[in-house]
């Protein structure tokens, strides 16, 4: 069974097609101008329907984004700690080499 979004999309697609052909077959600009609001509304519904088809697929929340930011900060802090450790080891290694030579 088709869901509501699919049915809405298919209906919007049909409506745009029908009204657009009718609009283009009107030779007079005034007649086209009279039909333009209905045509515009059909296009608007079509664009919304495409968006509504995709939107339910988005499952990442604002809370997830905040947690990602937090995890990024943890990695950053770990990087700073590691920088310090590496620097300390290098200093220690340098001092040890000096002591060995002496």
């Amino acid at each position: 069974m088709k869901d509501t979004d699919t049915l809405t999309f298919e209906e919007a697609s049909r409506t745009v097609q029908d009204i657009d052909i009718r609009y283009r077959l009107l030779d007079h600009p005034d007649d086209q101008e009279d039909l333009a609001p209905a045509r515009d509304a059909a296009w608007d519904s079509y664009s919304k329907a495409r968006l509504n088809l995709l939107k339910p697929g988005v499952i990442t929340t604002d809370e997830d984004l905040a947690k990602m930011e937090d995890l990024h900060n943890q990695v950053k802090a770990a990087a700073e700690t590691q920088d310090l450790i590496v620097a300390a080891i290098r200093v220690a290694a340098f001092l040890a080499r000096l002591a060995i030579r002496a």
Partner: protein
Amino acid sequence: MFNVKFRYLNLINMMILLMVTGCAGKAQCLKVAVGQFETESLAAIQAIDDMHKKELATETFSSVEKTYLFVENVLKSSRSADQNRIEHWLNPYKPGVTEKTQAEWIAFIDELKNQYVKFASIYNDIERASFTGRELVPKGIQYIENLIAQIAYFAKSVDEHPPKLLNRRGALIAELEKLRMKIEEKIAKADRNKIKSINKLSGIERSKAIANLSPRLHAVRKKWLTSLADANERQAIAQWQERWLALVAEEDELKRKTVEQCIKAVTIGLEIRKKMKEYNQISLEDISEALNRVLVLAGTVTGENYSRLQAQADKVFKDIKNDPVWQNATDLALREVNKAIKAREKAAQPESDASTGQ
């Protein structure tokens, strides 16, 4: 003795440095792979955005055609010129999507892109935190799972609801209808001439002519339709068919490209997720091999014909569906679908009540 202690200290320092730099190789591979996932995911989102823009795009007019259209509209219209009308005379075929709907679409695309950029940014400093931050790597799995499920969902949605270049379809169909109407006018004129010649007859001859004409009118009209189309009109119809087939092929290509890019991002994401899960057990060789696979995967999905691509997409969807780890993400997606449907039904309820006067 003192010197020996320092030698040991130096050795320990070297071992720690080796461990740290060993981890750095793994972390570097992970960062490159995550960066590749970000690139392909952003390309997939861009492909969806481009696809929708093309759906709304009008046919292209040369500057000569645009000027001709404007002059015709100005001369034919019986209404006075104002800013809106001039815009209408200039662009009569532009689809009128409201600013609000356009803004919703842009916000949707921007928000999606932000999610993938944010995920990749988690691992920006992972090389420098290769040793101290190694336990943090698997913590990103839950986020990449959702992000992969999203792109897979979009691929499925585009596959099931392929893009249609409706504006250009409308232009072509209207063109064919106008051509047919022109030929129909010729038939009507021929009809009138025939009736005139029948009216000139009298008595039995006239009755015979009318009897002969009426039952076979439909068939005769059809025959005229064919016979009255001149060489130019026939050529125009043949050219129209070519343009129609080219348009349908363009739509198929647009769908193929969009789905292909989504599947590429999903496939790479799945590979990275697998390695993130085993990150602390695997060696540098394992992860660099995985990185290689990621880079190869990015190339192999490209250029597939659609049936092969669809088979690949089906396999990815099946893997996601069957893996219990994914159950949460897919369930969540389904729950969101149901929630959205219910919310829309609820919103539509008062309107229908109002319209029925309840």
